[in-house]
């Protein structure tokens, strides 16, 4: 049975059920569907070839998953070197304090981290309002705003899969 036929059967099976619904269908036009994903803040979509049959495991071009990336500005509260390399500690202002929003590693180079660790913003204590579960951090005064993309936010309000894109003030940090 093809994917399209199974979809039709699924809709008939759950029709009239109170607590079970078929997964939402977006426009059959991929571009229009993507516009709807972005407009509604949906995580992404899976495009399925309705003529394909079920394939267990392994990659396939009959089902294509596309995830939206979100972007935002975050205050840098520290820099730390871990096994995967250098990372920035990001936060946002909430209720008058700096709330921890996670570590960003991708996009952070060693030269940038060195520049931050020797920056005038270095301070001896954490600027975050809560305890941060990271050791060996060089803490920074909250004077730098980073731009980052991310896939989602976890239930603990921490960024999922963030990527550092640069500083909002392009001249904030000079690399030597």
């Amino acid at each position: 049975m093809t994917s399209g036929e199974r979809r039709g059967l699924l809709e008939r099976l759950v029709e009239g059920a109170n607590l079970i619904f078929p997964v939402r269908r977006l426009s059959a036009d991929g571009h229009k569907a993507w516009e709807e994903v972005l407009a509604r803040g949906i995580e992404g979509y899976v495009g399925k070839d309705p003529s394909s049959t079920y394939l267990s495991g392994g990659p396939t071009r009959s089902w294509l998953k596309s995830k939206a990336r979100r972007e935002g500005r975050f205050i840098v509260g520290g820099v730390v070197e871990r096994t995967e390399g250098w990372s920035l500690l990001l936060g946002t202002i909430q209720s008058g304090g700096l709330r921890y929003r996670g570590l960003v590693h991708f996009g952070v180079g060693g030269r940038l981290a060195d520049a931050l660790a020797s920056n005038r913003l270095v301070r001896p204590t954490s600027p975050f309002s809560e305890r941060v579960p990271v050791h060996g951090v060089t803490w920074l005064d909250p004077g730098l705003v980073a731009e980052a993309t991310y896939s989602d936010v976890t239930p603990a309000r921490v960024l999922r899969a963030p990527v550092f894109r640069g500083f909002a003030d392009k001249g904030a940090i000079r690399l030597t």
Partner: protein
Amino acid sequence: VFDERLVSRFDLLGESGAAVPTTRPVYIAFDVLHARGRDLRA
């Protein structure tokens, strides 16, 4: 559960009295692979 934009919010599941208005919990079916003893994957 779904929020006011009808976006699914797994993180709000079980948060009674949450600040964000949500639907009641519902199941979402993605596919049907077996029905009435028949394997539909082939």
